[in-house]
């Protein structure tokens, strides 16, 4: 029984261990703190006490840093909060799960605004521009991952020509932890993620096999083409982390592919996304699995016949902190399926 549960046990143990004072050694923040964020100089005279997080990933990073008491509100949640952060998230006001209004944000009297996407905070945004806050002396922060892809390709969401990795996410965690003077906790979270990344790589290196994955996000109906995770996005990163490859070799972040096209790639493992929304007929994993097993053609796939279908949180397919959780979720199921030696 132990090996089956080892991954979840590992994940459960790692965070509290890493957060113990023994491993904490980062220096406290000296204010005023000056940072350069996406070409904007921001200054903090003290740690923010009424921060607003625009976008689920920004909010979840703050919650991971234990900042729920310093947060005045969050907005834009495509999916449910990470279960271990649910209790902390209860303490923070939810402005809206959709795009908020500038007035709604200002009504919370924020002393700091951090955003995950440029359409929540950026020059073309219909929510807010950084000047709206800087004019009021409120520092704002945009996810470095977004700026990096934007300047490199002129593309707001990164049609990547290189495989995504966690480095810019680590930079974001590090900078946010400095801003809030919780650098110890920031370093601990980063160390925890890095250790989990390394643990996965080590495990697949010693026990794994070279698997090919297809990452199925959703389809409007069984007859429609499937929305998949592309080669260089978070899905590609997960495949790489698990020592395998993504069968989709296009650089498009979210390719739409016919089932004939998917069958031609003959994937070794089919990853079906578990989505919180219920907008499309095949958003739910049960519906996806039922389709895979009943469609006359698709059910003939080797992966389906051998039951190599695994379920993963759909949010993991977006390049966020959830990506590493998704990789662990798959690894656990691969182990149950006996796909590790």
């Amino acid at each position, binding site marked *: 029984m132990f090996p089956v549960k080892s991954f979840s046990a590992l994940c459960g143990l790692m965070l509290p261990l890493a957060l113990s004072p023994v491993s904490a050694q980062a220096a406290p923040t000296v204010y005023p703190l000056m940072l350069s964020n996406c070409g904007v100089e921001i200054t903090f005279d003290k740690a923010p006490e009424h921060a607003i997080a625009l976008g689920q990933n920004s909010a979840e990073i703050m919650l991971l840093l234990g900042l729920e008491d310093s947060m005045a509100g969050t907005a834009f949640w495509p999916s449910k909060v990470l279960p271990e952060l649910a209790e902390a998230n209860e303490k923070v006001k939810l402005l809206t799960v959709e795009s908020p*209004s500038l007035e709604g944000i*200002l*009504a919370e009297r924020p002393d700091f605004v951090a955003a995950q996407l440029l359409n929540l905070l950026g020059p073309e945004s219909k929510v807010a521009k950084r000047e709206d806050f800087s004019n009021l002396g409120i520092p704002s922060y945009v996810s470095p991952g977004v700026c990096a892809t934007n300047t490199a390709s002129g593309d707001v969401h990164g049609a990547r020509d290189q495989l995504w990795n966690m480095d810019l996410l680590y930079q974001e965690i590090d900078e946010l932890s400095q801003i809030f003077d919780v650098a110890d906790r920031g370093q601990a979270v980063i160390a925890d993620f890095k250790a989990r990344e390394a643990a996965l790589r080590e495990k697949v290196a010693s026990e794994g096999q070279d698997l090919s994955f297809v990452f199925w996000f959703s389809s409007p109906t069984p007859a429609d083409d499937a929305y998949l995770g592309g080669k260089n996005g978070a899905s590609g990163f997960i495949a790489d982390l698990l020592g395998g490859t993504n069968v989709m070799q296009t650089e498009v972040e979210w390719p739409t592919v016919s089932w004939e096209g998917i069958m031609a790639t003959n994937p070794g493992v089919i990853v079906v996304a578990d989505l919180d929304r219920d907008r499309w007929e095949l958003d739910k994993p049960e519906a996806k699995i039922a389709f895979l097993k009943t469609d006359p053609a698709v059910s003939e796939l080797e992966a389906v016949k051998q039951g190599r279908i695994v379920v993963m949180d759909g949010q993991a397919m977006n390049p966020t902190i959830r990506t590493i959780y998704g990789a662990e979720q798959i690894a656990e199921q691969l182990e149950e399926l006996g796909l590790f030696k």
Partner: protein
Amino acid sequence: MSGLKRHFGEQAGLGLFLLLSTAVLMLAIAAGTGIGEMPIPLDTTFFAVTNRLGWTSFALDPIHQSVIWDYRLSRALVAACCGAGLALCGAILQSLLRNALAEPYVLGVSAGASTGAVAIIVLGFGAGTITLSAGAFVGAFASFAFVALLSDGARAGAGKTILAGVAASQLFNALTSYIVSTSANAQQARDVMFWMLGSFGGVRWPEFQLVLGVVAIGFVVCMYLAKALDAFAFGDDAAASLGIPVEAVRVILFAVTALLTATIVSMVGSIGFVGLVVPHAARFIVGPSHARLLPTCVVTGGVFMVLADIVSRVILPQQVLPIGVVTALVGVPFFSLILYRSQRSS
């Protein structure tokens, strides 16, 4: 004698109507500035405006000050200008094309704008140096140029011009779909949708200066040509026989509407219904003469859009509804009432 008296009576009536409706427009803008999610006392609202105008210098909460001046007032003024501009374009195009269904997007301007915006969002043209709005503006004018080419500089007649507009819309919508389906990801497709739905969320003072200038120029040109527009109602030949340079007037007016619509659509997205319905409503009130119709359209369109924007901001807490949803939801019952009453009276 009685005709002259009636003429003066009508002029006075129109003057009174315009005066009243301008007052209503001012009130609407004041309401747009005073109403919002954040409860701000009325006196604070008033002093926030007078402070920034340099008339007073009360110590106010900077957040209140900023919400009133930078966010609500600029937004209400842009909404008024956009409503005025769209209604003006609708009235001009309905007359020029002699088609009751003509509206500002009939020449494919909206479709062209979305292609321009998509080219910026998805293909990354200009790598961040060209703004979305500039891209949309170029796209809108490209579509207009295409229509002008197809309809032989709008000489080919109203029917052919409308067909050319339909062709341009189809072409640019297809281009947009092609770009989105071949190179966009799900998030980008969503951005494009969000952008096209129309919203006053992104506007501040610089946008107001631009749209005010463009709408003012458009209004002056159209008023100057109001008599010619009246003549168009009886057909091109009748207009020509009255000594109106038909082709020149038509090209100028098409260009003015294209400039207005392209400016507005590239600033706030595609907002339907106002340009179609306000001119009809205005005609019910003041009749078909353009010297009366156009100012009425401008004021009514402005009031309508400001009120619609207030509704879009307050109907959902913490969140903004796309303005196009509100213009249709508020506009259709209002228009039904006018239609019903006009049928009864006729």
